């Protein structure tokens, strides 16, 4: 037993207090030793054989019953696990203390206290078994008592509302404006439309230009607002237009200086 590590020899098995019936009970229990959950479980079973209220059980007799059990195990050459032997040693010690007059200078708990402690543990274990059985005898959910068989789930409609304050808005705008300041340091999209891209784009569009169409109509949508980008787009598209004229795929026209430049598909002859 863990809470009393004092070691004593296993007694020699003298069980004068037990009769033949007690002996055979002990033997039956030894054979069935695997059916017990440890020494305390066996002690509780032994205590019940005293056929008295557990509160009135004789701990002395119980110790003798247990020691007879260990003796029976020896006789039947059944090996008991260590905790069974520790309990046997402790009970042999308790038995001798209970039989002998108390030593005046003895330290530690008295024999009576030790016996009371064991009796308490047995009662407590028995009580837990009883209430365990009472619990199991109650009407159990899903067996005798039932919840709603077809519960109706609550649907959660989650709507996300996005929030922002005026300060957030101002900060965002300030961030955009400040970023413009740092633009030279920032690797952004180059505001240059390459002539290659413009040519590719124009070749895709020129087929529809049956009539004269101003050059600006051929500019990509996102290159028409910001002046630098617009200039680049105009230059590249103009260069592309010249290239198409050179290849004989388009015609170019400007009515006067600085007027709009127009182009159209060259009609196939």
């Amino acid at each position, binding site marked *: 037993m863990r809470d009393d590590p004092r070691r004593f020899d296993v007694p020699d098995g003298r069980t004068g207090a037990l009769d033949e019936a007690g002996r055979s009970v002990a033997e039956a229990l030894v054979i069935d030793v695997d059916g017990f959950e440890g020494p305390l479980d066996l002690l509780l079973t032994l205590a019940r054989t005293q056929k008295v209220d557990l509160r009135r059980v004789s701990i002395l007799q119980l110790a003798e019953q247990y020691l007879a059990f260990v003796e029976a195990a020896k006789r039947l050459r059944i090996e008991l696990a260590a905790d069974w032997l520790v309990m046997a040693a402790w009970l042999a010690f308790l038995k001798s203390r209970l039989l002998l007059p108390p030593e005046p200078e003895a330290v530690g708990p008295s024999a009576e206290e030790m016996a009371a402690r064991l009796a308490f543990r047995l009662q407590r274990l028995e009580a837990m078994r009883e209430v365990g059985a009472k619990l199991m005898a109650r009407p159990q959910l899903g067996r005798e008592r039932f919840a709603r*068989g077809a519960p109706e789930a609550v649907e959660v409609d989650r709507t996300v*509302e*996005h929030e*922002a304050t*005026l300060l957030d808005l101002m900060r*965002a*705008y300030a961030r955009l404006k400040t970023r413009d300041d*740092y633009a030279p340091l920032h690797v952004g999209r180059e505001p240059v439309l390459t002539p290659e891209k413009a040519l590719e784009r124009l070749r895709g569009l020129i087929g529809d230009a049956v009539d004269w169409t101003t050059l600006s109509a051929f500019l990509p*949508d996102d290159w028409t607002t910001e002046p630098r980008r617009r200039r680049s787009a*105009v230059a590249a598209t103009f260069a592309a237009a010249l290239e198409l004229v050179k290849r004989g795929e388009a015609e170019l026209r400007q009515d006067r200086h600085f007027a709009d430049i127009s182009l159209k598909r060259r009609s196939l002859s």
Partner: protein
Amino acid sequence: MYVSGDSLFTGPPEAEQERMVEAMLFAASGPLTPAEIGSRLPEGSDPYAAVERLRRRYEGRGVALVRIGDGWAFRTAEDLAFLLHREVVETRPLSRAAIETLAIIAYHQPVTRAEIEEIRGVAVSKGTLDLLMERNWVRFGRRRQTPGRPATFVATEAFLDHFGLAGPSDLPGLKELREAGLLDRTPPDGVAAPRPDAAQASIFED
């Protein structure tokens, strides 16, 4: 029809049969037919009568005993269906892309998508604009009279309301932003003033 006196086998009292049917229907995972109910009631019971009494008992209650196909089942009363729906409103901060887009629209309205992209330097996802329109802070303005007639975006009354602004001109200008320490640097000329009409300018204009 069950008539207790005439019945060969006398079943439990009517009230007791009703309780039994109540418990059965409550515990059942689906509708139960009167035949199924009857097979589980004590001998001499009348499942039809018990179901009918139970149905009347639940009339006007929070749950109703309703007929589903050949069977019967408890269901939430129709007028209380709203209790099975829970509206959860989650508040989340607007994403950086969304708040920037909103700021551009507020300051530059009416503004086209291409212009927003030009200012932000990145493409504006459809989701961002949808979100702002869903939130009712942004709506479509008049189409720009330029090739392609692109749609423009403007800020709404609800936007002004939400941000506590009397009108678009109430938005703090760059000067105020700078004074509030939100702008660390003086923006270069030509960028400072948003020019909504810039897109109308001729291709050779500076």
